[in-house]
């Protein structure tokens, strides 16, 4: 800022100095003796000053041109304003310059007139004619004095000179010996001061014996000098003498003649100088014009820059705002319309900045809430999926991936229904969810079962519609819980309660009933007649048998309902199967076993195998053939083992296939009907799934799917 002010003041100082210099130059031309000795200095200074300003302006023009080419904000407007201002300022200057130049020429020419010149010349001639009589008179006087002196001795010449000077009113009389170069005698009213040039021995007369001329003497006026040669005849050897006489011209004539000479001189001087005067005036006028033009151009630059400055600031500010810099504030230099515009711009950027900060804070809050939500969702045991209006997956949590056993990160943004085909768990989920997503119901709930990485899973799904917040349609929220363990626990608890009640309500009375029947039999069998004894024997036997049967049934049920602690350990399934199959005749059993490791309770697994093999043997009591196979499969990310036990029995009716593993569902006349229910229970406790299907040719197959140990 200081540098800018300094530059401005220096430029202003330069202009003032130049103007002063030009004024002094003009003053010199008006014959002012004050600055006459500075003429060359002033001329040089002015020229160099103008050259400096010219160079500065050229540099400014170059700089402006460069800015225009670079597309600097406001450069084009500045250029236009500079051109406009320059034209507006320079045009009148040029007009004034043109007419001033003409005026100067006209005025200078008008000074000189041939009539005046002629008049002055005539006056000069007249003056000369008037003086010529003085010259003749002086010559006559001098000749007369010389005649008087010719007969005198040198010693007497002085007194005669004094007398003659008084008589003739001569200013000075001098007798001079030209051969010796010495003054013989002199008579003067002011000795030694008058004669401007006294003759010496080299002096020669222009005419043969006289010379007369006008002698202007500085400070004294005009004089007539007459020199006459004469022979000093009084001497024995006549010698040549010069008489030099000086006569003052009459003061009126002298004054007038001097005046005429002075004026003629002045006129001739001016006439001689008029062409150089024209040149000098034109030069000074041109310098003034140049100064004015350059000043106007410079002022145009300054004014244009001052005018454009707020606009350029506004453009730069707009660019800054466009680039996201809302902190940009433009300084207000003037309280005019542009200042109001700048203030409005500043207000706008302030408001944009406040809005941006507010949006940023809101974003931060939203991000914090999202983070909070993600943390909450991540810690939730329920799986959560959110879909947009196009059923594309928007969000999921870790629990969802854990429950479904698949990574959902790759599915984000993709339609859920299209992704379903690739993942079995998702396919099962989609089958259930699809119906509800397309329905109008706001909330829904459904339970589903699938076999995934962790084995069989039962999910409780709940869904709700989400409001359309971001214009992407009505979204959907799906929340599902893995209730496999919960169902198992509920079932165990229910069957346990039944078993406890059976034990309490049924099993407890059985012992007294059996004991009473045995006492009756023991006490009265021997005493009763044969017929009654046989009846008693049969009845008590029936009671005891039925009580035992009921006891067995209750025990079996207790066994089913009992929930012993399962001890899961990694083991080779084929080894366990071989151990169990070795207990059965080899001709009955065929095995195709792959070696595979599962995590299971070996005892419970053997119980399952025995139950299933026993059922298979009983399905064809005459010629049983059992084929046991172990195969491993992989579906997407889930790897599981499939244990298949095929028999060659009669198979199972289609209506019983769905409920064959329910308690008290059996095709046999004997048995508790809990065998397959216990098998299913154990398999589900191992995270497996079991089902039965009829073989294509004959018999049925029990298929058990267990997750492979990882």
């Amino acid at each position, binding site marked *: 800022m200081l540098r800018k002010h300094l530059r401005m003041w220096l430029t202003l100082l330069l202009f003032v100095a130049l103007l002063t210099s030009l004024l002094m130059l003009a003053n010199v031309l008006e014959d002012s003796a004050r600055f006459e000795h500075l003429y060359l200095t002033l001329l040089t200074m002015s020229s160099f000053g103008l050259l400096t300003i010219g160079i500065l302006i050229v540099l400014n023009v170059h700089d402006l041109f460069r800015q225009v080419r670079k597309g600097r904000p406001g450069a084009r407007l500045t250029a236009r304003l500079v051109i406009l201002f320059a034209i507006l300022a320079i045009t009148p200057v040029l007009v004034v310059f043109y007419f001033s130049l003409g005026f100067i020429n006209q005025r200078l020419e008008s000074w000189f007139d041939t009539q005046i010149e002629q008049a002055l010349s005539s006056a000069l001639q007249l003056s000369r004619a008037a003086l010529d009589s003085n010259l003749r008179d002086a010559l006559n006087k001098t000749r007369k004095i010389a005649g008087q002196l010719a007969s005198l001795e040198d010693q007497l010449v002085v007194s005669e000179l004094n007398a003659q000077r008084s008589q003739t009113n001569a200013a000075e009389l001098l007798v001079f010996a030209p051969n010796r170069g010495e003054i013989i005698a002199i008579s003067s009213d002011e000795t030694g001061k008058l004669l401007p040039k006294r003759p010496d021995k080299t002096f020669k007369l222009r005419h043969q014996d006289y010379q007369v001329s*006008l002698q*202007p*003497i500085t400070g004294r006026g005009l004089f007539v000098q007459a020199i006459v040669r004469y022979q000093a005849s009084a001497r024995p050897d006549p010698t040549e003498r010069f008489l030099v006489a000086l006569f003052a011209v009459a003061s009126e004539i002298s004054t007038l003649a001097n005046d*005429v000479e002075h004026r003629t*001189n002045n006129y001739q001087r001016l006439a001689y*100088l008029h062409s150089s005067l024209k*040149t000098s005036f034109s030069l000074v006028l*041109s310098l003034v014009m140049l100064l004015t033009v350059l000043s106007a151009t410079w002022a145009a630059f300054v004014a244009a820059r001052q005018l454009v400055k707020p606009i350029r600031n506004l453009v730069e500010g707009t660019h800054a705002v466009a680039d996201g810099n809302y902190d940009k504030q433009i300084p207000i230099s003037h309280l005019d319309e542009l200042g109001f515009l700048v203030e409005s711009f500043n207000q706008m950027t302030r408001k944009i900045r406040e809005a941006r900060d507010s949006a940023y804070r809101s974003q931060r809050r939203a991000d914090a809430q999202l983070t909070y939500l993600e943390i909450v969702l991540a810690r939730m045991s329920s799986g959560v999926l959110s879909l947009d209006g196009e059923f594309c997956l928007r969000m999921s949590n870790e629990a969802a991936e854990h429950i479904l056993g698949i990574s959902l990160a790759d599915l984000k943004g993709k339609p859920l229904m299209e992704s379903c085909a690739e993942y079995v768990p998702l396919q099962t989920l989609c089958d259930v969810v699809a119906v509800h997503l397309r329905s109008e119901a706001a909330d829904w709930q459904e339970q589903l079962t699938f076999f995934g990485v962790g084995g069989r899973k039962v999910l409780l799904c709940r869904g709700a519609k989400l409001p359309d917040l971001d214009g992407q349609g009505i979204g959907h929220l799906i929340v599902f819980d893995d209730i496999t363990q919960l169902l198992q626990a509920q079932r165990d608890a229910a069957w346990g309660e039944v078993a406890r009640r059976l034990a309490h309500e049924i099993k407890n009375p059985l012992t007294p009933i059996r004991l009473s029947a045995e006492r009756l039999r023991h006490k009265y069998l021997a005493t009763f007649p044969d017929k009654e004894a046989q009846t008693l024997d049969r009845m008590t036997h029936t009671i005891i048998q039925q009580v035992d049967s009921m006891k067995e049934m209750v025990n079996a049920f207790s066994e089913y309902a009992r929930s012993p602690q399962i001890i899961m350990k990694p083991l080779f399934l084929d080894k366990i199967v071989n151990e169990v199959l070795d207990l059965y005749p080899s001709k009955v059993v065929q095995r195709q076993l792959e070696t595979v490791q599962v995590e299971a309770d070996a005892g419970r697994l053997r119980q399952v195998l025995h139950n299933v093999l026993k059922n298979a043997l009983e399905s064809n009591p005459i010629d049983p053939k059992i084929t046991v196979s172990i195969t491993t499969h992989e579906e997407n990310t889930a790897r599981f083992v499939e244990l298949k036990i095929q028999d060659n029995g009669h198979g199972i009716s289609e209506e019983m296939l769905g409920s064959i593993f329910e308690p008290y569902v059996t095709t046999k006349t004997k048995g508790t009907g809990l065998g397959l229910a216990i098998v299913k229970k154990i398999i589900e406790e191992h995270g497996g799934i079991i089902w039965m299907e009829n073989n294509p040719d004959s018999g049925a197959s029990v298929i058990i799917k267990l997750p492979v140990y990882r």
Partner: protein
Amino acid sequence: MRVFLLYFYLTMAFSAQVLAIENTSEGLFEIKSAKTYLQDHRYFLNIDVNYELSDESIRALKNGISLTLILQIDIVKERWYLWNEKIATSTYHYILRYHPLSNYYVVSQVNQNRTYVFANLSELLTTLGSFREIPLLEKSLLNEDQSYQVRLQTYLDIEALPPSLRTIAYFSREWRLISDVFNCALE
């Protein structure tokens, strides 16, 4: 544009004026001889100068312009290790005027109330060119072991011309009347 054209014309006119003097006398100032001598323990100088004015300067003189001729005399001490040292300077100004009434030429020396009148210019210039008994300085002021030189130059003083004429005179050969520097030993 008109301004630049005008400037161009002025420059051309000025150049033409300068070139127009090709066939006229340009004048010549030449110091032909200079001799110092010692008299009564004081050095004096006699100089013979050939003053020949240019036609333009004579025309100016006859039109009432005074011409100032300057004779500059420098006494310098010779130094082998550096440039010579100027120890004294004398400048004589002679003003030439023309009186149209008497048709005489007058020369006067500035600061001295002495005026000489001549019937013609050549007589004036011849008389003016013979400078006699110009006092220089006392011998006692000089070092005897040191050698001294008198450096002379005479020229027409352009600065004494009317200002309007100076602009042209600065650039005109006719007005640039200056002799070469003449050196003579001070002995």
